[in-house]
């Protein structure tokens, strides 16, 4: 009979091997229905060069990786307590330093300065437009979803619907849709911002008020259906939305006050600064919100709804509020995108979009504003990098495989995200050891 230690190690190695086989499969060449096994077999057998050193079939390479990772991991595990101890003692002073208010503020200032000079460093047109369309706007969206999923703990899979509402509202207000604009006036996209926010909020309340009473998983599926239905309407109501082709006549933002006349649209850089300004506003607003009475109510509901209700918090009210705020942010992001790309069509508003935003929030860390921004920057940069320089045999839809894998992997290995919020991390670990949380959270917050 084998000793249990050896059995665990063998199991661990086999699990790692299986994981690497999956990685091999999703990075391998595609197959087809005529030869359903070709993608799989070639994923393992195709010759590949090992950093230009020698050529070997893929499975040899991945087996080598597996062994290396396994060895490093078991070394780490055997030493881990001492390594963690050394790490803790050596970084105690620097960490205490970073906890200081002045240092934290100057770090943020430094990051802002980097963000401001970024377009001067990144001059490649592809990356400059990605910076706006794929990163800045997605940060706005992720910050909004973070209110819903991170702060209030509600899963919204139809987030794209509110984004679509914002984009279509912009098209409507500026007179780009078959539907006549309000009062027949073609307005500037700036005027679309309040209208889009109000419309998205109203949609959020209409959808949320009845469904937020329900259990979390019902909410997820209802919002998912809602997202699909908004796309369906956008696609089919030809006389209102322009149907499947949408519209490409949305004007750029313009600014006319007294002698100042400015029109956005010549290149992505002006839009970058506009978006950056809004990102900063969002960050400030949502951090204030997080630590306000409302934010604490969300935390209470997320942790224990019954207990929250018993101390006089109306869960439905605060959930609807979170939902509406998330919806408003998405609507706002919709205005940004519509005005910048001049273009809106139902093809953008698919379920995968909602999933993509969810990935940003989960990857960075639910409930952590810094985490969500980091998540958005990393995941979006990764996606744009792959699209920009695709590996052989890559198809754009393959990205969705990675998005799905990120969700599962994060939930298994690091549920609180890359840069967890302190509160959330404590909550998740406590739920895992089965402790009741409320009292200890309070104690922890004070320390």
């Amino acid at each position, binding site marked *: 009979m084998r000793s249990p230690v050896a059995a665990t190690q063998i199991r661990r190695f086999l699990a790692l091997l299986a994981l690497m086989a999956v990685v091999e499969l999703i990075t391998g060449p595609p197959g087809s229905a005529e030869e359903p096994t070709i993608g799989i077999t070639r994923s393992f057998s195709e010759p590949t060069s090992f950093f230009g050193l020698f050529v070997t079939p893929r499975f040899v390479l991945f087996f080598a990786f597996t062994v290396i990772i396994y060895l490093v991991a078991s070394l780490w595990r055997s030493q881990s307590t001492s390594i963690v101890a050394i790490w803790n003692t050596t970084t105690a002073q620097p960490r205490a330093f970073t906890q200081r208010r002045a240092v934290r503020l100057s770090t943020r200032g430094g990051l802002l300065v980097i963000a401001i000079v970024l377009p001067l460093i990144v001059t490649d047109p592809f990356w400059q437009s990605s910076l706006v369309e794929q990163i800045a706007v997605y940060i706005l969206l992720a910050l909004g979803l973070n209110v819903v999923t991170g702060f209030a703990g509600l899963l919204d899979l139809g987030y794209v619907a509110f984004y679509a509402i914002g984009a279509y509202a912009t098209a409507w207000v500026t007179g780009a849709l078959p539907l006549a604009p309000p009062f027949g006036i073609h307005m500037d996209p700036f005027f679309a911002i309040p209208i889009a926010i109000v419309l998205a909020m109203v949609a959020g309340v209409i959808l949320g008020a009845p469904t937020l009473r*329900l259990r*979390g998983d019902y909410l997820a599926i209802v919002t998912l259906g809602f997202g699909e239905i908004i796309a369906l309407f956008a696609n*089919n109501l030809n006389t209102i939305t322009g149907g499947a082709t949408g519209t490409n006549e949305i004007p750029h933002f313009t600014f006319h006050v007294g002698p100042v006349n400015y029109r956005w649209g010549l290149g992505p850089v002006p839009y970058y600064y506009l978006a950056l300004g809004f990102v900063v506003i969002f960050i400030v607003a949502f951090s204030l919100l997080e630590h306000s009475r409302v934010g604490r109510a969300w935390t209470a509901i997320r942790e224990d709804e019954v207990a929250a209700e018993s101390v006089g918090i109306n869960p439905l009210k605060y959930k609807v509020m979170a939902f509406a705020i998330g919806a408003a942010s998405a609507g706002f992001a919709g205005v940004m995108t519509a005005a910048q790309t001049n273009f809106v069509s139902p093809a953008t508003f698919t379920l995968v979009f909602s999933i993509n935003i969810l990935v940003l929030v989960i990857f960075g860390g639910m409930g952590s504003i810094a985490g969500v921004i980091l998540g958005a920057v990393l995941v979006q940069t990764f996606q744009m990098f792959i699209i920009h320089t695709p590996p052989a045999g890559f198809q754009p839809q393959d990205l969705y495989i990675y998005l799905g894998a990120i969700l*599962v992997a994060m939930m298994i290995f690091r549920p609180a995200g890359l840069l967890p919020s302190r509160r959330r991390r404590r909550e*998740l670990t406590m739920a895992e050891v089965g402790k009741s949380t409320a009292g200890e959270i309070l104690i922890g917050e004070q320390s």
Partner: protein
Amino acid sequence: MSGIFQFLSAHFHILHITFWPLLVGGIANGFIYSLIAIGYTMVYGVLRLINFAHSEIFMAGGFASYFLLHALIGHSTPSTGGSILFMALGMLSGGLCGMLVAVILERVAYRPLRRRNAPKLAYLISAIGASYFMFNLAGKEFGRYNLSMAQPFVNHSLFTIFGAPVQMYYIVIVAISAAMLFLLDRIVATTKLGRGIRAVAQDAETASLMGVNIDQTIVVTFMLGGFFGGLAGFLFGMSSGVVYTMGFTPALKAFTAAVLGGIGNVRGAMIGGLLLGIVESFSIAFVNGAFIDVVAFAILVLVLLVRPTGILGEQLGRSA
């Protein structure tokens, strides 16, 4: 007033002439929804959560039976004996593949979270990720276009009910589904396995104290649900073809059916599926074809608002 009357009478006129064909089609669709809804409802019973990745079990069943039948039949027309054999093979391959995927899913996306006693939100996210991962991987490996399944039998009209032709396909679906659902009902109601499932659904902790192996029961539940989901994938694929995104809409509707019948309730899922199929079919007379999927969604929201426990009430334990 007269305008509304005209609108209604015009639409009821359509319903009047198409009542029987719509009913026949609706029943056949409804049985497929029932088969998928079984998976949702049983997993909900033991884990108290919605298996978002169930749509991919359905898809996997469709692909497995497609590849097998394509290899065996190709474009030829099988004889009567061959038809029965190929139907059996299609069902088995679809069901077994669904089962396999369900077991892997439980193992990878759910069990690690269960071990940690993770919050419910984590399960949902993990399941959504798994669903996205699986169907896009299928798209990558098998191409992203619709494949029409090789037909195990000739789909001619057998007889008519009040002038509505009833095709072979409908008869096959109804016969197989009804037999399978009856079998499942008996399994849950009478066998030791079913007793274990019901016990875990009622109270997992007490069940484990009474000697029920919870892990094993959960896996078996996933297997049963997976078998039915994969089988439904085969039956659905026979008429609508197989494609990597095929799971999404039927699964959403089957979920609606499960909620309609009372989630966690096996008989409820059967009734809910049938009812949804028929209602949806009749709504074709009133709703523009492009918006037909909205009907199921509207029903879902309505049920959740008016009677969230569904027709028969939620509770797997009490179902039999």
